[in-house]
């Protein structure tokens, strides 16, 4: 654990903390369970199904009910207990409840209460509501553990409607010119969010297998998505010229893409906010679409919790911690975690900003073990922005 320079003294008795950082993950000592552990443990509470937060190998899992089917489709046969949003369960004297985080379907913030103290671990979250998952709900707490993937003021998002209008216009232009529109994005969450807002009148929507699997889970969970097909199900290949193709970034440069000989490509990610990352990615268009909070979103969410102490887990941890200490007068620090931290992927061009803060910590403090978990999860799209 690293403690950033903070003008506010740390609480006198850290043994009273409800969550601490351990080599296995975030740990609740009185409850004897972990939150989103990156190594196999006895009991794991999961915030959401992205692979840097939900890993196989643990004994028992507890998660929010709306995320159950996604977790099962990703982690396979696991011992999973679920809880509807807002309901409380007690374990070793700790009251546990899950609250919507607005990140992807079933994503949750985890609220812990013991002896009148309330801690909330956010997992990943975004604050603007969109139709494919329950919107983020601020939960009052004493200590808020937050992500900071886009924790710099250069990250400010436009509204979901504006973004979708832009993407639909790009698709229409391509369809009119008789070329397919290949849109790369993460298979879980981002793909379904985009899908929900696409205008099916423009042409057929083709999904890569990795995306289609998750579409099915979303539909079964009652999220309305326009009709989609796998490319193998398309008999008349000429319609591909009007098609929008949703594929994970790992499909870039593979033979699968050869089925769309004449196409324009685009990438949907918060990292597309910067010209540098956009150009590195080498696609025709970059759409700035993120399932994480932007800078104003992070500050709004932190403020809405009323927390006096804030712990930042991953992303741009340093700037957010310093801002909270110096400008907001809060007691802020960072935890070193393995969220959002995986090796650069040469083919898909992981922007290093995502690893920046983590690397910063690794270079400056006694590092927590950073070896990979013993049991890797199932095959995943690259971890650029989960």
């Amino acid at each position, binding site marked *: 654990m690293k403690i950033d320079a903070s003008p506010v003294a740390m609480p006198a008795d850290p043994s009273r903390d409800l969550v601490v950082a351990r080599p296995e993950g975030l740990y609740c000592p009185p409850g004897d369970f972990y939150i989103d552990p990156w190594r196999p443990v006895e009991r794991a509470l999961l915030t959401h199904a992205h692979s840097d937060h939900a890993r196989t190998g643990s004994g028992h899992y507890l998660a929010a009910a709306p995320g159950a089917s996604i977790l099962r489709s990703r982690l396979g046969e696991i011992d999973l207990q679920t809880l509807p949003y807002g309901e409380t369960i007690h374990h070793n004297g700790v009251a546990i409840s899950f609250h919507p985080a607005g990140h992807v379907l079933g994503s949750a913030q985890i609220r812990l209460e013991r002896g009148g103290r309330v801690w909330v671990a956010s997992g990943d979250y975004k604050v603007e509501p969109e139709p494919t998952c329950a919107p983020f709900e601020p939960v009052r707490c004493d200590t808020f553990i937050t992500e900071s993937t886009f924790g*710099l*003021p*250069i990250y*400010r998002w436009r509204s979901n409607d504006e973004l979708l209008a832009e993407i639909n216009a790009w698709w229409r232009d391509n369809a009119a010119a008789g070329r397919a529109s290949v849109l790369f994005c993460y298979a879980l969450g981002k793909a379904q969010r985009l899908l929900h807002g696409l205008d099916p009148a423009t042409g057929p929507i083709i999904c890569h297998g990795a995306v289609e699997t998750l579409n099915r889970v979303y539909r079964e969970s009652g999220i309305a998505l326009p009709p989609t097909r796998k490319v193998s199900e398309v008999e008349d290949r000429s319609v591909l010229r009007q098609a929008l193709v949703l594929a994970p970034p790992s499909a870039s440069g593979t033979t699968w893409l050869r089925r769309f000989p004449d196409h324009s490509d685009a990438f949907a990610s918060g990292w597309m*906010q*910067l*010209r*540098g*990352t*956009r*150009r*590195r990615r*080498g696609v*025709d*268009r*970059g759409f700035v679409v993120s399932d994480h909070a932007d800078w104003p979103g992070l500050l709004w969410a932190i403020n809405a919790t009323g927390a006096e102490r804030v712990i930042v887990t991953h992303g*741009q941890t*340093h*700037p957010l911690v*310093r*801002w909270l200490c*110096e*400008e907001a007068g809060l007691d802020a620090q960072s935890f070193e975690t393995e969220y959002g931290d995986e*090796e*650069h992927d*040469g083919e898909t*061009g*992981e*922007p*290093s*900003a995502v*690893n*920046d803060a983590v*690397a910063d910590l*690794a*270079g400056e403090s006694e590092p927590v073990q950073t070896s990979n978990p013993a049991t890797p999860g199932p095959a995943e799209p690259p971890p650029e922005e989960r």
Partner: protein
Amino acid sequence: MKAFAELYAEIDARTGTNVKLAAIVRYLHAAEPADAAWAVYFLAGGKPRQLVPTRLLREQARLAAGLPEWLFDESYQAVGDLAETIALLLPPPTAPDTEHGLAFWVEEYLLPLRGLPPEELTPRLLDIWARLDTHGRLVCGKLLTGSFRVGVSRLTVTRALAAVAGVEAKRVAERMVGYTAIDARPTAADYHALIAPDSQDAFNPRASGQPYPFFLAHPLALPEESDPGEQLGTTDSWLAEWKWDGIRAQLVKRDSKMWLWSRGEELITERFPELAAMGEALPDGTVIDGEIVIWRDDRVQPFALLQQRIGRKNLTAKLLQELPAALLAYDLLEWRYADLRQQPQRERRTQLESLVRAIAQPTLHLSPLVMGESWAELAALRSESRERGVEGLMLKERESRYGVGRTRSDGIWWKWKIEPYSVDAVLIYAQRGHGRRASLYTDFTFAVWDKSPDAPDRRLVPFAKAYSGLSDAEFRQLDTIIRKTTVEKFGPVRSVTPTQLFELGFEGIAPSTRHKSGVAVRFPRMLRWRRDKPISEADTLETLRALLPPELRIR
């Protein structure tokens, strides 16, 4: 302004030349001529001088965004581009301007800013930012700092103009000469002249001091140990010259006046009074293409000395005496107002030789022909380049016409350069890159050992910075290594535990009092990542010093 900012965003986002070309053509068709005039100026590389000091711009943007200094800096480091950082951080515009075009913006809002005192600049900057969206602020920021660059070549702009005008690109290239000079103020009339139909061609060399578009050479890349004859045929179809390490220039004499133009199409007449002086001796209607060098003791002097001349504002008599310039003439483009460019190289050469001999000026020398009966003989002469203070050989097709830019249709000029100097050096500092490398550690400082391997207490001494020569994949791997081996951070710079060895190439080397190592190198770049060698095998300062040209070593 809005239309131009959108054109910039579109060019910036695209990779294909044809897509960019089409976007420029669309813009030019739709734009007012006065706006198009400025758009062409900026796209083709024109840069007005910096209008607002960077520090003030940065500080005002930071205040307008309401951020502490450190957070503005963190943001800038993540973005890697000041204008873009400012565009992203400022609050949304309060009075968006969709009405005024580029020309109005440049002439009414931007150019008048130069030289204003800070207290007058501040309200004007805030007013400008209030009127522009993110795209507009980005473009405006780049114009204000004089750092506007966009990913199109001058050739692409020329082709777009040719498409709009319906005339040959070559014609447009001739009309473009001098268009992007630093003090140019392009008007609607200038734009009309660029796209005029052929019959009303406004290009009339007699009327002006304009040079011709420079004909540029292509690098000759031969597989190692191969016979140049396989690619080039016999030596007798080529004229060989030394490749001089100076400033390429055209000397223009018309209407009793003399102009000296650099390759960048800037007027440099006043920088070289000794060359301007020979204007008297040259007949009107003469254009000579050649290389400006420092010439002393009957030989060419290192580029480092020419650099001292260029860098100096005041040309004192002492400086002119110590560092005398000369023009090494290698082509004659105009003679008695007749354009010779369509004549074969050998003809132009013959005429040039008689001219240079006839006027016999002390500052005008013929760039001599290098005689070799065979490729083996020429190769042997080329290997003496370094001792002669040249960069290698130029091979010019005897029958070639004088083309425009890097064309090949008129015949070809090859530059057959010698291999760069190279040393093995250790990476010791890294800084995040700019543009498409923003937030990746791609700008490195390299060091060599100060003593030989047997010395007990030797240390690494930095001597060069380099940021090119690796593949994207290698840059990414190196970025990871740098993050893992960071020792200390000083603002955007990290020092790392020295673990990585590189073969570093450079074109020239000179003594320097400004560098700790005592030497400065030109165009350093990474030739190879030597993962096969330990850092203990890096070269030493002694090796570097031994590369200094003798005439620089003595001084």
